[in-house]
């Protein structure tokens, strides 16, 4: 009796509002929303890859223009690192499995968790693939800058590149501090945003598996 009462209460609950579809507009509306989501994703991709392309062009210019051999080598290696970053970000997107919303609840939880774990791994390891390699290259690049007079070289770039040791140390310290901040930001994102979601998914997974011993 109570069981049927509850089912009736539940079914009657949708009577408080009538849902009407304007079918002539619905598909247009859905298509429009799909396009706006795709546009947002495309813009994000262009922004991420655009920064690396800018880096390739800038260090390409340095590699050609700057006469100091060590700085030249560092510029070429930095270009290689920027290209690696483009591939790394693309690869990460490709390996992320799109969530199949029509999968079973249990499977969907697995998919969500895998994606979150992958995201956490990527962000937790930024020190090794995003921060340290360019920082080492920055050190080589900056310490490699020699005296332009020795090479009979003059360029607008000398206004921004440090020549004196003091200036080099100051710039490297600033870059180092910025890198520490980048690592901290990523670790914080994992701790504040991703880890709680993984824990919540794991809790629900273990709740789902509970009672299995009574089968």
């Amino acid at each position: 009796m109570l069981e049927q009462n509850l089912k009736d209460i539940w079914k009657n609950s949708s009577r408080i509002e009538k849902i009407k579809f304007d079918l002539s507009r619905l598909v247009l509306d859905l298509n429009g929303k799909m396009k706006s989501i795709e546009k947002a994703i495309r813009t994000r991709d262009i922004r991420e890859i655009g920064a690396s392309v800018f880096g390739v062009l800038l260090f390409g210019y340095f590699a050609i223009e700057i006469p100091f051999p060590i700085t030249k080598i560092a510029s070429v290696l930095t270009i290689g690192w920027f290209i690696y970053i483009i591939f790394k970000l693309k690869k990460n997107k490709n390996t992320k499995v799109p969530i199949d919303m029509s999968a079973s609840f249990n499977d969907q939880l697995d998919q969500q968790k895998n994606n979150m774990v992958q995201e956490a791994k990527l962000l937790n390891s930024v020190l090794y693939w995003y921060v340290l390699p360019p920082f080492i290259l920055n050190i080589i690049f900056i310490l490699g800058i020699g005296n332009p007079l020795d090479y009979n070289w003059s360029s607008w770039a000398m206004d921004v590149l440090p020549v004196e040791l003091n200036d080099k140390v100051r710039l490297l310290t600033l870059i180092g501090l910025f890198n520490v901040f980048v690592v901290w930001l990523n670790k914080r994102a994992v701790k504040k945003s991703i880890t709680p979601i993984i824990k919540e998914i794991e809790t629900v997974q273990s709740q789902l598996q509970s009672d299995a011993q009574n089968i």
Partner: protein
Amino acid sequence: MHSQREYSLEQVLEDNKEKIYRICRIYAVDPIEPQDLFQEVVFQIWKSFSSFKAKSSINTWVYKIALNVCFRSKLKLEKANSKLVKLDSIQFIPAETDSDSDDEEKYKALHDCIYSLNESDQSIVVLYLEELPYKEIASITGLSENHIAVKMKRIKQQLFDCITPKLN
């Protein structure tokens, strides 16, 4: 078994709108409204519609999407509800007949009792209240039919213990 070609999107939405909305009402937590979740479910159904294969019934398929979308909203994967889809072509109109305050109270009691269950039990109990057989609940949740039966025995007891004093 039917294939996707035998259904139109409009038909599927029309036939299932009330059940989807009932589930959305359980999962909507401020600042997300049930209407927001409903629209997101409709969007996901439309997105996945072409890939529907008649491995399960269309009802089971709709329930899976509704449950997954609603649960996903709880994980707060998107910042606030900025990424939730707003569709102007779906209207929510309050029912013309005055809703019975007694019915509202009963529903509120049921809602509170469902909400007091853990996340996994919530997802199972809404399917039970939809009068789905255990076999279908098992297919939607990805558990075995026996497992669902054992769980339901416990969940029903919890639900009855919670709601009986509220309804009397």
